[in-house]
C-alpha cells in the first residue's frame, strides 16, 4: 500500500461506507449502528441518488454498503442500479434474510459483491448473536447468490463465540466457493453493551493473530492491522484509512470519518446539501483526523505494521482520540501473563521490523 502517496492527500476517498438505513429486521447484539427501526431524516430516494451523483463526480471507486439491513429499503435495488450506471462498485453487507432467488437473480451484475453475515459456523453460535433462525436464512441467501455466480464472502465479526469456529467458517465458505472475511468487533452502537461479554481476551487475540498469519486467504477488510503480522503486510492497509482513503455516510447523509465513529463530535457535514469536496479536504474534523499521531506508539517495533491501531476502538474504550489501540498485538502479548511469548514468537511477530 502506497502510504506515502496516501499521505500526500487524495482528491477523494477511494471507498465510502454508506449505511443506507437504520432499519433492520434482525437485532444482533453487537450491531455497530444500533439498528432496528427506520429513523426520521433518513435520505429519500431522490436525495440518495443526488448523493451518488456527487460521489461519482469525485470518482469514488467503491461503496461498502451496510446499515441496518440494506434490502429492507424498498428502493434499494434502484439505488444500486444508479450507482452501477455510474461505474461505482458496490460491496453490499447483508444479513441475507431478504435475498430470495428472485432478488439474487436481480443482483447479478459485474460491479456487485455481497458479504453475507454469519457470526458462527453453527446455528448455536450464530443465532446467539444474530437471532433465532438467522443461520439458516443466511445459508439460503448464499446458496441463492452462488447459483447466479455472484461473488460472495461470509463476513464474520470476531467474538468469543465465533473465535472457536474460525476453521469451520473457512471450510463453510470454501464449500460455497466463497471467501471468509473476519471483521473486528468494536464497542460502538449496541456493541458497547455487548463488549465485555463478547470481546476476545488478550490471549485469544494473540492466538487469532497467529491464526490470521496462517490463513492468508482470509480477508479482514483492513480491520486487524493492529494485530496482523509481517506475513500479511502486503494484503492491505497498515494504518487507519479514515479520512485518508475512506469515510462513512450515515442514512441521514451525515458524513463521518468511519462507521465506528458516528458520534456528533465527528460529524463533518451532510450530503447531498454540503459540498463534498469541502468536507473531504477542509472540514476541521477530517483535517484533525488526518493529523492524528499516536505519539506513544512511535518507538514501538510494530509501529510500521499498525501505526497505533484503530482510533475508534481507542476512542470508545478511553473516550479520547490520539491514544493507542488498547488491543494491539504488543498489549495482547504483554498481558498474556505466564504464557509470555518466547523469543522465537517475538521474532515471528516482529518480522524484519525489529529495531
Amino acid at each position: 500500500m502506497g502510504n506515502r502517496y496516501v499521505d500526500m492527500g487524495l482528491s477523494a476517498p477511494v471507498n465510502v461506507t454508506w449505511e443506507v438505513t437504520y432499519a433492520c429486521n434482525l437485532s444482533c447484539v453487537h450491531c455497530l449502528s444500533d439498528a432496528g427501526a427506520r429513523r426520521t431524516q433518513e435520505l429519500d430516494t431522490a436525495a440518495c441518488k443526488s448523493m451518488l451523483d456527487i460521489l461519482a463526480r469525485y470518482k469514488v471507486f467503491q461503496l461498502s454498503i451496510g446499515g441496518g439491513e440494506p434490502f429492507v429499503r424498498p428502493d434499494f435495488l434502484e439505488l444500486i442500479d444508479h450507482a452501477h450506471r455510474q461505474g461505482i462498485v458496490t460491496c453490499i453487507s447483508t444479513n441475507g434474510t431478504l435475498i430470495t432467488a428472485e432478488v439474487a437473480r436481480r443482483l447479478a451484475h459485474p460491479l456487485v459483491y455481497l458479504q453475507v453475515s454469519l457470526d458462527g459456523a453453527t446455528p448455536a453460535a450464530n443465532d446467539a448473536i444474530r437471532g433465532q433462525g438467522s443461520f439458516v436464512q443466511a445459508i439460503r441467501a448464499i446458496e441463492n447468490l452462488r447459483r447466479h455466480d455472484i461473488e460472495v464472502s461470509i463476513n464474520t465479526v470476531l467474538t468469543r463465540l465465533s473465535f472457536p469456529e474460525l476453521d469451520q467458517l473457512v471450510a463453510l465458505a470454501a464449500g460455497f466457493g466463497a471467501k471468509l472475511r473476519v471483521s473486528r468487533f468494536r464497542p460502538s452502537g449496541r456493541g458497547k453493551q455487548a463488549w465485555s461479554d463478547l470481546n476476545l481476551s488478550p490471549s485469544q487475540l494473540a492466538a487469532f493473530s497467529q491464526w490470521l498469519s496462517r490463513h492468508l486467504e482470509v480477508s479482514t477488510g483492513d480491520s486487524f492491522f493492529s494485530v496482523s503480522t509481517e506475513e500479511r503486510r502486503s494484503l492491505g492497509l497498515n494504518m487507519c484509512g479514515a479520512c485518508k482513503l475512506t469515510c462513512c455516510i450515515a442514512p441521514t447523509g451525515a458524513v463521518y470519518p468511519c462507521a465506528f465513529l458516528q458520534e456528533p463530535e465527528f460529524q463533518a457535514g451532510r450530503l447531498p446539501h454540503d459540498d463534498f469536496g469541502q468536507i473531504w479536504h477542509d472540514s476541521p474534523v477530517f483535517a484533525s483526523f488526518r493529523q492524528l499521531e499516536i505519539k506513544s506508539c512511535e518507538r514501538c517495533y510494530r509501529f510500521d505494521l499498525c501505526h497505533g491501531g484503530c482510533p475508534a476502538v481507542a476512542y470508545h474504550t478511553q473516550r479520547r482520540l490520539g491514544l493507542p489501540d488498547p488491543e494491539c498485538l504488543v498489549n495482547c502479548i504483554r498481558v498474556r501473563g505466564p504464557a509470555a511469548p518466547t523469543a522465537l514468537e517475538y521474532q515471528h511477530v516482529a518480522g524484519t521490523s525489529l529495531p
Partner: protein
Amino acid sequence: MNAEKKYVLPAGVQVRQEKFGLLFYNYRGPRLYFVPTGDLLPCSFFTGQQTVRDWAAAAAWRYKTSPERLLTRVLKLLALLEAKGLVHG
C-alpha cells in the same frame, strides 16, 4: 509494445488523477495501484481515442520534450500497466 495501439481500461478497472500521478482501482483485486506518473498521462488517454504515437506527437510540446522521447517513456509505462492488467491496447 506498439505505438500504433490505442489503450483503454478493462472492465472493472477505473483510474483517476492524483497529486502523485494515476490511481488505479481494479475490482478484481488487488484493488489499488499507485502509479507515480505525475502529470505524464491524463486519465483521458485511456478512452482509446488516439494511438500512443498520435498522443505523443500532440502532447510533446507540453512536456518540453521530443515526441520520440515521450513515446519511449510512455510505452515503457504502458507495458508495466498492461502487465498488471490495468490497461489493454
